[in-house]
């Protein structure tokens, strides 16, 4: 009977040490999919409550990180589905005018924020893969596990996404010059 609280206490400290540090990754992935910061924050809180409730089962998973990413992906895609069926359209307020700046580094800075917009327009799968690989630096195997895809399928989609982003940037760059 004395063992029970000790065990939960151990689970709690373990949770605080291993799961809680994932909050930034969870938030960034949620934001990538849900776009709005508010919704991403709500989703992160919701997801951590779920993880907290299931903390006794977490050690059954080989990678808690991958598990948390999978949960985040599923949760956010569900949210998006519910939103679409409610016919609520996402409103993006971050459209900017293409001010043609003469200075090169300003131009680069401008295209940095352009990249955000371009990723936003990618299909969901490519969005997820770009986020997991180029921002969070997961291995292809791990991404495959999270998204339930073969590693080769991950590579194909990632290559497509990278090429699309670059080509769109070139296009915009050329418009700026002409």
């Amino acid at each position, binding site marked *: 009977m004395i063992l*029970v609280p000790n065990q939960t206490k151990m689970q709690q400290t373990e949770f605080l040490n291993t799961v809680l540090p994932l909050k930034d990754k969870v*938030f*960034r992935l949620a934001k990538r999919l849900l776009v709005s910061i508010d919704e991403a924050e709500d989703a992160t809180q919701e997801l951590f409550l779920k993880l907290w409730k299931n903390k006794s089962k977490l050690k059954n998973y080989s990678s808690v990180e991958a598990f948390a990413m999978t949960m985040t992906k599923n949760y956010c895609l569900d949210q998006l589905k519910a939103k679409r069926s409610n016919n609520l359209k996402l409103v993006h307020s971050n459209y900017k005018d293409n001010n043609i700046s003469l200075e090169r580094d300003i131009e680069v800075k401008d*295209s*940095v924020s352009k990249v955000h917009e371009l990723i936003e327009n990618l299909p969901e799968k490519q969005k997820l893969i770009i986020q997991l690989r180029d*921002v*969070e630096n997961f291995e292809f195997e791990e991404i495959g596990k999270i998204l339930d895809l073969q590693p080769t399928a991950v590579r194909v989609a990632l290559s497509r996404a*990278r090429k699309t982003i*670059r080509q769109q940037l070139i296009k915009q760059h050329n418009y700026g010059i002409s």
Partner: protein
Amino acid sequence: MELANIEQLIEKYENAETSLQEEQVLATYFQQDNTPAHLLEYKAMFGYFNESKAERFTKTIPLKTKKSYWKWASVAAAAILLVSIYTVNTSDSISDQERKDAKLAYQETQKAFQLISQNLNKGESVAIAGLQEFQKTQNKVFKNN
């Protein structure tokens, strides 16, 4: 890192064939200032990825550590229940002796009542004899009228 090497890595990168280490090499390369014009798009991309990595979740996460108190409350409730059941059971065994006493008392009282009723029966037959006598005299009186 030579430009030729970077260009090679970039080609691999576009085909999603670079390892995480190679991508790290590219990331550090594009943090430098003198990027050739034909690679500027990559500078923007890696710059954006780097920016994204720095993003943090700033809100607090409300985790209910108080939940364990409820567990303790249930333990306490179970203990109280056990104790109460135990005391009820033991008080039952005490009344065993009392029950014997009560039975004895009951038997004794019954004996006493029986004694009383026997005597009462005796008295009843005497009373009835008396009543018959009374009836006789009554008849006599009514006849005379």
